[in-house]
């Protein structure tokens, strides 16, 4: 098994030549620099992206639409060649075949051969790895069961719902028992139950010592399961770090919910908190970092109120995401 970062991107750049002349095969790059929209112009999808993913972590890769997430992931998979820069996968250069033996990948909105049923489908993908027919079959049956598609084992994929396609897609990403699993929008199009199943699967992969690198727009899911996240905007990395660190905010504050607050106690308690609101018989007090939480609770108890909850107010990943996207 590989030690050291499982995935590194080092100053990765990618430019696309577009327009009628720019998109021509073989000669397009000569016209991309014209800068005339529709005829030949260049778009920089990635502008010096660098990051590293450590073994065994769940890494969330975030960014608004058009940020370059899928471009970066496709470069990792060898589907797109970088214009400049380099990277490694499991210690091997990008595109290396050995690394791809230990890698699993699910693209965004996957499409598969619709005439195949799950068992044939997984046998097809398993056949691309050095596995015997017996190993493939055993693994395929286990994965079909794990993703909850045993009831559809003989049904062709063209008759699958979107959620079922996503699940069989995850199964093909795991057919070779990979060390690194790369998922591009794995929860896309899934209902809450489907999303929970995918989250559980990702957790399970981590407990088995695998590394998961995934991109998603569903920030609650990313916040819930990721160890670290990176936020990319317009092809550049804006923030990276452990989720807990990113969400920490010295000015966030605490929310204290009280019940049985007497009329007499209201002025005293309001004086100790920054804001207060009454809701269905309960009082919610917001205390900033400068307010004394201990002092407030002691006072509330002395005045006969009962404490329902004390919740530290953290910034959400969505707030950070919107902030970074707006800054760019």
């Amino acid at each position, binding site marked *: 098994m590989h030690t050291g970062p499982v995935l590194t991107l080092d100053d990765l750049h990618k430019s696309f030549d577009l327009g009628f002349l720019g998109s021509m095969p073989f000669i397009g790059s000569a016209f991309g620099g014209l800068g005339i929209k529709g005829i030949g112009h260049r778009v920089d999808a990635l502008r010096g992206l660098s990051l590293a993913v450590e073994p065994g972590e769940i890494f969330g890769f975030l960014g608004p639409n058009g940020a370059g997430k899928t471009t970066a992931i496709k470069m990792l998979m060898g*589907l797109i060649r970088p214009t400049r820069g380099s990277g490694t996968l499991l210690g091997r250069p990008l595109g290396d075949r050995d690394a791809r033996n230990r890698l699993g990948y699910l693209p965004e909105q996957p499409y598969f051969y619709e005439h195949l049923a799950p068992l044939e489908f997984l046998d097809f993908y398993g056949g691309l790895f050095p596995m015997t027919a017996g190993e493939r079959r055993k693994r395929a049956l286990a994965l079909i069961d794990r993703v909850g598609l045993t009831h559809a084992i003989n049904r062709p994929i063209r008759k699958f719902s979107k959620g079922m396609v996503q699940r069989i897609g995850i199964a093909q990403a795991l057919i070779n028992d990979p060390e690194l699993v790369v998922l591009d929008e794995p929860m896309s199009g899934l209902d809450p139950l489907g999303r929970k199943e995918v989250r559980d699967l990702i957790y399970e992969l981590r407990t088995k010592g695998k590394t998961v690198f995934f991109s998603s727009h569903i920030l609650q899911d990313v916040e819930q399961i990721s160890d670290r996240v990176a936020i990319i905007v317009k092809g550049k990395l804006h923030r990276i770090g452990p989720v807990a660190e990113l969400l920490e905010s010295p000015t966030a504050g605490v929310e204290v919910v009280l019940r049985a607050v007497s009329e007499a106690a209201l002025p005293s308690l309001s004086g100790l908190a920054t804001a207060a609101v009454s809701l269905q018989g309960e009082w919610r007090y917001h205390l900033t970092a400068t307010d004394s939480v201990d002092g407030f609770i002691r006072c509330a108890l002395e005045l006969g109120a009962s404490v329902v909850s004390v919740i530290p107010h953290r910034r959400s990943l969505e707030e950070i995401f919107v902030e970074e996207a707006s800054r760019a």
Partner: protein
Amino acid sequence: MRQIYIIALNTFREGVRNRVFASLIAFAVCLLFLTLAVSQASLHEEVRLVKDMGLFLCSTFSSLICIFIGVNLVYKEVERKTIYTILPKPIYRWQFLLGKYFGIGVTMAVQVAIMGLVLFGQFLALDAEFGLLMVKAIWLIYVEVMVVGAVALFFSSFSTPFLSGLLTLGVFVVGRFGDRIATMRLSEDTNAATQADPFVAFLKAAAAAAPDLSQFNVTAYVVYESSLPFSYVYHATAAGFAYAGVVLVLASMAFARRDFT
């Protein structure tokens, strides 16, 4: 090799389950049966007519069907994004292309075999001998189809089906009539200036680059029951697959540089 086999097998399975492919074969088979009917109008030349028309239909339709399948092969994978889950697996791009080529090869072998069987049936109906000459002719039709398939795959590796189809059809036509284009003159005028016509020059250059498909057309030998030595069949087969090999190498080079956005 395993990866090539897996891709080839899947390509074949996809091909034979394709309704358009089945319809085209059915149509070609119907036309073959038509030759039997038409031959009844000939003056005791039924066998000759069946040989001539039968081989022509077998060759032309097989090539056209192969062009139709070949120009869609890679394009469909990219368009439907099925390629996005295959290329990240431990498979080289050239293995993927070669697998596709062998997949067409097996599919077209089935198609040519079906048409060959229909022809055999027609010979039985006419109480005529099928003979080794017919087998050689059908084999050379298959080799021609594989050359055309390689050209279709080459264009398909970087172009749309419509453009690939046009270009492959162009190569097919030029290849079929290459021997006549080589000696082509627009007029009887022997003036050197007239002979240097750019259109003729272009056609001759195209004919030089295109495969010589006329070498696979041995209908005359079959119709007139002339001797066709095995050495001719070997050389034509080797030349055909050598050309296909070169084209596949070029296709791999084009495919290797491609970005799948």
